[in-house]
């Protein structure tokens, strides 16, 4: 380990579902002070079609934030715009309160897109070695992460021969090799069965405790409820609700409602 990965945040990671419900203005003020990253009124259009409209929310250090919504809600576009992978029409992103221009987003955020199988002709181990060498990861770090992600059985396989689940694990591994404090993942549980999803949830939870922050774009509400500390509910490119499950329950007045009930109530 070169020291970068183990640098733990001086801000304590926020325990899951721990923020109590509070008035919106007060919550916003407090969030602004503590925010690792603040998304400020971001909008994105393709021609005449508005994909993301005036989206604003904060990301706290050490949390797992879920961008939740059905297919076509604008989750992927939102993540790509924040990560600087697409030009934005309006709005800005702040890192610890200071503007973070698109050209410098990759210094803070690592984005794992959906549906990517990188370097398909290469064996898995070579792809991992490339990323590990770029980020100067030690052999023991790489081996530990391989073990944690569960890639050991397919190290000798070429990427194009991987199943969908192992392909996801490879992408997750690449993200974990990156030393970035903030990891964006688009549909990270797509292709996993229940047991595998739990393994990955535990792994993400462990990483979050270590100080890394995650933003996950998820369309399966059950998975999102299982893993995320807070939620940004999206529909038609607009934010319909932001907060912990308890916040959202309080806002909708559904005391024991699941995320699915809340989402349906808000959209």
């Amino acid at each position: 380990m070169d020291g970068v990965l183990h640098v733990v945040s001086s801000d304590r990671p926020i325990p899951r579902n721990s923020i109590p419900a509070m008035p919106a203005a007060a919550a916003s003020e407090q969030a602004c002070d503590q925010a690792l990253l603040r998304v400020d009124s971001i909008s994105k259009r393709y021609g005449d079609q508005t994909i993301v409209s005036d989206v604003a929310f904060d990301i706290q250090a050490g949390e797992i934030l879920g961008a939740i919504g059905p297919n076509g809600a604008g989750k992927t576009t939102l993540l790509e715009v924040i990560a600087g992978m697409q030009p934005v029409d309006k709005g800005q992103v702040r890192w610890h309160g200071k503007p973070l221009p698109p050209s410098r987003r990759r210094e803070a955020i690592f984005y794992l897109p959906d549906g990517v199988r990188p370097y398909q002709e290469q064996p898995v181990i070579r792809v991992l070695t490339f990323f590990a060498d770029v980020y100067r990861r030690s052999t023991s770090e790489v081996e530990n992460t391989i073990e944690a992600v569960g890639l050991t059985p397919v190290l000798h396989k070429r990427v194009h021969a991987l199943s969908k689940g192992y392909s996801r694990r490879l992408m997750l591994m690449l993200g974990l090799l990156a030393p970035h404090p903030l990891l964006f993942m688009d549909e990270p549980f797509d292709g996993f069965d229940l047991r595998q999803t739990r393994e990955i949830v535990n792994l993400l939870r462990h990483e979050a405790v270590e100080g890394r922050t995650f933003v996950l774009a998820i369309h399966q509400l059950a998975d999102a409820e299982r893993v995320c500390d807070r939620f940004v509910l999206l529909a038609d490119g607009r934010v319909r609700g932001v907060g912990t499950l308890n916040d959202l329950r309080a806002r909708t007045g559904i005391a024991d409602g699941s995320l699915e009930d809340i989402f349906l109530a808000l959209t």
Partner: protein
Amino acid sequence: MRSPEAFRVQTAPLRPLFAKELCEILSGRALWTMLLLMCPLVGYSFFQAVSLYGEASTAGLQSPVLASTLSPLDGILVPTLGAFYVAVTLLFPFVAIRVLGQEKESGALRLLVQLPYRSPTLIAAKLAAVLAAWALSSIPALSALVMWGLLGGHLSAPETLNLFFGHLLYGLLVGAVALFAAAVSEGAATAAIVTLAFTIGSWVLDFTVVGQPGLLSWIANLSLTQVLHAFEQGLLSVGLVAGICAAVLGFAALATVWLPPGVRIRNKLIRSIVCVLAVALALGLVTQIRLTFDVTEDRRNSFPAADQRLLASLAQPLVVTVHLAREDPRYADLQRNVLAKLERAVPNMSIRLAGERQSLPTNGVEDRYGEVEYSYGAHSDISRSTSPREILPMLYGLAGVSAPAPAPGSDYPGYPLVAGSQVAHLWFFFGLPLCIALAWWWSRRLPQPIAARSSRRFNHEHN
């Protein structure tokens, strides 16, 4: 707190990036398929060249005068590397496009651009991979030259290296065009069409407008194939080399502009225009560089050494006024035999084409048509000859200097050779393809040390 300052782009090592690019290009089928296709292509050109050279040599062995006209540069090198040129023009774009196009199609580019490298570094690494691919693809051509040496043939090192250098620059230019095409296109197929439009379009330009006057002549100079002509004549032109380098850097810069996905199209277009203007300015400047070296063993692009020395000492301006149309064959003769050599030898010389606006006279009504006027200082003279044997003494007369005595033993002997090429058949149709297939298989092996280590660890943990 993890801070973005910890992950600045300057900190990333370059070695893994170059290694990755090399692995990527070696793992693709395009390079190996191209190499296999080049074996018979280069081989057939080599057989033909050796055969024709042998036929000419049969007479050359009987006559020293005929022998002196036999140069391996024209007889073997240019035709053999001509096949290499065809392969680079038609097949190499597919190899070069893959360097970027594959990552674009698989989505890996979206990971690559997030790594701590600047866009120019990424493109430089890809250009280095293209260069490595070109070096590998030159193996059949190189083996033909080795075969020629084994058959007893002569090769002049400066001629050979110069010609290979020209092909290297041409390969880099095609590679840079391919990278640019891959950067601006969504898919590899579109990029291939764009690149082939450049390379095959150059052929069309050569066929249709070369030798035409005015604007068409200027357009013809934009052809990529013009790059090789000077090198095939045994000339190393500093201006041409600088021009090609500027074009390669220009296309690479354009690829860099179009690589990052998070930049608005309008900004990319503005940066592209700046790049194009900068390259146009650079090309305009390098056309002023007239430094050229004749690297041929027979010094075909120069006058005899004694004449060269004397012409270089002429201090006053020499003005040549040519009353010929550019498309007139006599002008081509004059240009090749006299004017081009004079331009390289005389320090202060200018050429005026007075007949440029004239068409070829049909009835000899144009009195001065065909005349070439040479003015040196206050003296001038007129000639219609295209031979240096007549013009050089006239120039010495104008300058008031004596013609130098010819240096003994400086004549080019020529290198006639009658050789069979049966072994070359076996090499190009069986030996070399087999070696390439084995190298392909070897390149697809897993990285053993890491794999073995991981396997050992994996087995240990599961026992």
